[in-house]
């Protein structure tokens, strides 16, 4: 029990709340930015009196929201633009690595200025692994809410399938997507990549009127998650997730089990959205550092460590019954 008192004081278990906050902020921005753009077009038109009543209301609301930050909305509000697929953050251009890869495949040539925009995401992925999936991706927010819905439906007695497929299937989707992009000469992976879909569908819906086909596709993935496999799209099909998994295979920062504090309760395995095996040190390249297992662990036996590879199975947790039996056997 001495180890339990020597816990590092950093509150790792609250990271999950921070993650939900991040996801919500990203989602809120994706909803807000199209409205900001519509407001900017109204400002640029200098025709407040000609707006319809609903448009005037939007104008007033957006003016109230943005006036503390800017005196010149038409120019200043361009500081934050775009989606998580490709965006502009105070002059810093960021793009999804999959966007660059898909474009390189479609055009069969490399465009170096765009490579610069993916450097920061790639570097962050090399350090934190598949963190984009857990911390930023707007689809993750909806998929996790969908998982909760699934749990409630299950509790109410509805049948929610939980089939397991081969995790490597998504790498095939990535490869096939890139090959098809090259064959058709357009970035096809963008059409089946939920974060890209959500960003532009929200923009279409708000600024241009009406959802497109991507929304239908996204609803299908939600149904797949609900009825066929838990978080099935992220785990088995997402091409971006595949790319991030590959990039994050030898990530520096990874969650590891502290075997001295583990009591084999297996809550981590139950809570893991990606169906990984934290209890037996089975994290692998698919772990998206979402910290749900850390938050749920009753003995704080999971923590971030600086390692390039996962630890091999460390045996049963020292606070568990199995370990005590082993020790008793050894002593006897």
């Amino acid at each position, binding site marked *: 029990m001495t180890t339990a008192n020597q816990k590092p004081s950093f509150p790792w278990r609250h990271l999950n709340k921070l993650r939900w906050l991040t996801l919500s902020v990203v989602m809120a921005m994706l909803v807000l930015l199209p409205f900001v753009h519509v407001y900017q077009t109204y400002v640029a038109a200098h025709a407040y009196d000609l707006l319809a009543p609903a448009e005037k209301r939007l104008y007033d609301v957006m003016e109230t929201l943005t006036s503390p930050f800017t005196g010149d909305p038409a120019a200043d509000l361009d500081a934050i633009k775009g989606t998580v697929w490709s965006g502009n953050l105070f002059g810093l251009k960021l793009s999804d690595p999959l966007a660059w890869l898909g474009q390189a495949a479609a055009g069969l040539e490399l465009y170096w200025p765009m490579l610069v925009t993916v450097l920061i995401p790639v570097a962050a992925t090399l350090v934190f692994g598949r963190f984009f999936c857990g911390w930023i991706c707007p689809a993750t927010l909806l998929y996790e809410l969908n998982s909760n819905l699934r749990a409630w439906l299950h509790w109410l007695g509805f049948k929610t399938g939980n089939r397991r497929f081969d995790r490597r299937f998504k790498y095939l989707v990535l490869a096939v997507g890139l090959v098809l992009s090259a064959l058709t000469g*357009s970035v096809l992976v*963008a059409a089946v990549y939920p974060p890209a879909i959500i960003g532009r569908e929200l923009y279409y819906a708000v600024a241009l009127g009406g959802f497109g086909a*991507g929304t239908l596709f996204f609803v299908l993935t939600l149904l797949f998650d609900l009825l066929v496999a838990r978080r099935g799209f992220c785990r088995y099909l997402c091409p971006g997730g595949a790319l991030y998994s590959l990039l994050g295979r030898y990530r520096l920062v990874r969650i590891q089990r502290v075997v001295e504090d583990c009591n084999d309760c297996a809550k981590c395995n139950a809570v893991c959205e990606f169906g990984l095996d934290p209890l037996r040190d089975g994290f692998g390249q698919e772990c998206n550092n979402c910290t749900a297992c850390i938050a749920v662990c009753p003995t704080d036996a999971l923590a971030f460590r600086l390692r390039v590879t996962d630890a091999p199975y460390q045996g049963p947790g020292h606070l568990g019954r199995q370990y005590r039996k082993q020790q008793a056997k050894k002593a006897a």
Partner: protein
Amino acid sequence: MQRRGFLKRAGMLATGIAAGGLPYGIARLTAPPGQHDPRRHVRLPGALKDEAAFAAACIGCGLCGEVCPPRCIRFHRSDGGGALNTPYIDPQRKACILCGKCMEVCPTEALSVTPRDEIDMGIAQIDRSACYPWVDQGICGACVSICPLGERAIGFKMWNQYRPVVKKACVGCGLCVEVCPHPSLPIRIVERSQGTVTRHSI
């Protein structure tokens, strides 16, 4: 046993591709018939001239649309007019004001920053068998007065003050198309090689 596994997996792959493509097919089939002529759509200022190269370069992020002050940039969704999610302008509904924001914000080579006079979205072509002044049905000059490039791009024919004539400096922004009051839109943006004068006489 292994062959059966392979067949099963191939079947799953085929089903997956079909399920993934289904929404796009449904949206394409249920799309409302366009009231607007896709032949009158133009690509953005500074866009790659080759249509295939443009489709390959564009990642469909929508940034150009999100910075466009007049909100003239639209996207091919289920209309079948071009590669999915690539931007275009329908000058009939809303035309480009040549502000250049889209070129600056584009992360790919699809749009490259071009000086205003060197932009080539096409050239305006006037149907002299429909344009009001050209058929002596009144005086207009809306296209001439709206043109952001002024006299270099469009002016009046010398001997009749109200008959518009497009000149070589026209970059094809389409503002003249947006303001043209004639219901059949005798002015339109076409490829530069097609010239500035036509007579459709429908």
